[in-house]
């Protein structure tokens, strides 16, 4: 049983197990802190900087990313100081300059009183939260996609900007993207993710397309069970 600590968030006393992040503790207590790059299934990343809060430990007050900072006894957290809001406003304006269409971003902007971005808009879609890459690495375990470049030229990329050899076409990256910029469609037994095609497997029993062949091959490889074992859909098992 983890040790419990007491923290104060916006004046409210909250008890949370040691090792919880401020964001987790706040969310559990129904205190809203905007965030885009954090995900329960993934290790904290701290990239979007929307979740910044002000903390006071002893005498010092400073801003930290609530998705990474762990609660400690006696910690005082303020989620909405002007300083905090200014950071959030800058972040959302900067993100809107990359994607001023998606409702998720527009909602956060609206909450912060930001009507539009003052920066020139260059539609890129992706907000570089990294959830797709991190999911592929930490949850799926194949690291088919990654980052390329650095700084403003940073992009989500497939190796050499070509069909990713390690992709199992599971679509996790598509599902996890908060702004839904990874396209996926299925037609005539082919699943297309980004611009790459992955043939689907027909169920041995019912004949329906149900999973990408590459995904089943991957399961077969990691479990050491024969491929045939996986070629039946969930409904027919």
């Amino acid at each position, binding site marked *: 049983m983890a040790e419990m600590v007491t923290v104060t968030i916006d004046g409210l006393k909250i008890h949370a197990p040691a090792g919880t992040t401020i964001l987790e503790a706040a969310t559990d207590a129904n205190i809203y802190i905007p965030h885009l790059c954090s995900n329960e299934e993934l290790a904290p990343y*701290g*990239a*979007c*900087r*929307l979740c*910044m809060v002000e903390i006071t430990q002893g005498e010092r007050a400073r*801003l*930290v*990313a609530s998705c*990474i*900072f*762990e609660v400690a006894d006696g910690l005082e957290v303020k989620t909405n100081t002007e*300083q905090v809001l*200014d*950071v959030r*406003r*800058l*972040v959302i304006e*900067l*993100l809107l*300059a*990359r994607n001023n269409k998606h409702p998720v971003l527009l909602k956060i902007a609206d909450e912060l009183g930001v009507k539009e971005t*003052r*920066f*020139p808009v260059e539609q890129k879609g992706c*907000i*570089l939260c*990294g959830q797709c890459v991190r999911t592929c690495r930490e949850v799926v375990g194949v690291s088919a996609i990654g*980052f390329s*470049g*650095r*700084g*403003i*030229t*940073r992009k989500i990329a497939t190796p050499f900007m070509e069909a990713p050899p390690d992709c199992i076409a599971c679509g996790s990256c598509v599902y996890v993207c908060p702004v839904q910029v990874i396209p996926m469609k299925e037609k005539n037994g082919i699943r297309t993710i980004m611009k790459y095609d992955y043939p689907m497997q027909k169920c041995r029993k019912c004949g329906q397309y149900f999973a990408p062949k590459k995904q089943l091959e991957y399961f077969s490889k990691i479990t050491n069970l024969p491929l045939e074992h996986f070629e039946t859909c969930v409904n027919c098992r």
Partner: protein
Amino acid sequence: MKKVKTAQELKSLQEEIKNSRDSEKPCITICAGTGCLTHGSQKLVDNFKAEIEKQNLKGKVEIRASGCHGFCERGPLVVINPQNIFYQRVGLDDAEEIIRETVLNEQIIDRLLYIDPVTQEKILHENEIPFYKRQMRLVFGMNGNIDPNSLEDYLSIGGYSALIKVLNGMEPEAVIEEIKTAGLRGRGGGGFSMGLKWEATRKAPGLPKYIICNADEGDPGAYMDRSLLEGNPYSILEGMLIGAYAIGSDTGYIYVRNEYPLAVKNITIAVGKARELGILGKDILGSGFNFDVVIVRGGGAFVCGEETALISSIEGRSGEPRAKYVFPSERGLHNKPTNINNVETWANVPLIINKGAEWYRSIGTENSKGTKIFALVGKINNTGLVEVPMGITLREIVYDIGGGIPKGRKFKAVQVGGPSGGCIPESHLDLPVDFDALSKVGSMMGSGGMIVMDDRTCMVDVALYFLKFLEEESCGKCTPCREGIYQMRLILERITQGKGKEEDIETIEWMGKAIIDGSLCGLGKTAPNPVLTTLRYFRDEYESHIKEKRCPAGVCKALITYTIDPELCTGCTVCAKICPVEAATGEKKEVHTIDQDKCIKCGACFESCKFDAVKVS
């Protein structure tokens, strides 16, 4: 050299080497630091060696290629001992004359002496030259006395005495106390107490513990660490050995910037020789203490100078920093307690152990003890590396040591702290060099880059320069830094092109604060500093660019025009010949003109006109 197994054996070896050296024997030291190498000093070294052979003087006259002596402006530098004669701007073919005249005939070659620009006096000895006189070269001064590839040279000047003292009866905690008391603060820019860092790493639970030497000197215009690593790699090893002992670490990493092949070469040789001698490896000097070093090269990323990004790099990943809510001293490399310090900081350690914390405290100011090495560059007469006691004023550095601004131009500002620092105007020139004093005016000590600017430097252009640099070097992980610096750069670019808007200054100030508050690591957190300090002290320049579409310093291309003064033009046609777009035209012996529609502001005509007829407005 035979392996030494005890402190006593090392001491005896030191004595033996010292005694075998004849201080009366002629010794010619040629500076082979990077600056002088660029002047061609390697050829000079080879010429000296060839002459010695030719004149059968081998064994009678020593030739030593040393690391950087600091006075880069006057290279190639040669020092002749035992007379301690200092020759500057030595010609590559002067070897024969120097040997014949100065070494054999004890004659001074006047034309190679430094002439004091004020008194016109010829100066014989290094320490009498104004550039050197005001310095306190405790750490850097050793460079001139050793060949960086010679362990014997280092031992002959007392090298490894500090290690002997420590392993011969100082408890690790006592070593830490000594460093804490001395007040040595990080020389890489952070300025954090080395002693406290060591203590935290020692106390942190977990094994193994690592120590790292950060030699990823990325500040453009700073090359102190390079010269230390190239010129005296053993001093850094000694510092690391002592630190590792104090902390309880058995593995050290030296992370050297990819762009420093000579530094990598010299530290690799030094490590090899130290292993041979037995002061790296197992059971060093019979104390039971084990320590060895791994040399790693950077991949060409400024952000890897940030300690958590450096650690990522060593772990085989891209240089993405991590939030420092938990310090590396607790969880660093491979999640183990790790202590990282800068090259210069490590190099100060043997000094403190040898001479004591009290002695060290006698140098510097209340909160900034010891000396600091600066790379004094830019619009300055005496470009080079200088080591000064903390507390000396910027004015003394710029004028007394630096010799003031060349071509009679006026001082405008000095940038301290590189891309993370800020510019300091004339009104603050009497500021003491001190961690806290510099922070108070919006700048910071930084790693030691000190760039002097004159009235022909546009401060908006300087701010833009740093933003472009940081934009390229940002790792790209967090939004405020990646996007914020980019957008700020776009705004500044517009301003330098005469497309600035009224609200731009306010926007920059607002952005700057939010980027400082919101960024993940030190790169982002300090990125706005150059912009904010230039705004603070040179707001009028920004306003000129925005409101009047004018660049007072005559730098921003879009806002300047090159014209030919008809009174001064002699019709020599040089500008017409060199103009890449045929904008400068004219008949021979007749006044030339520049077609503004064609002119691309490349500056070639301005540079080539010998009559000062090309004007920039």
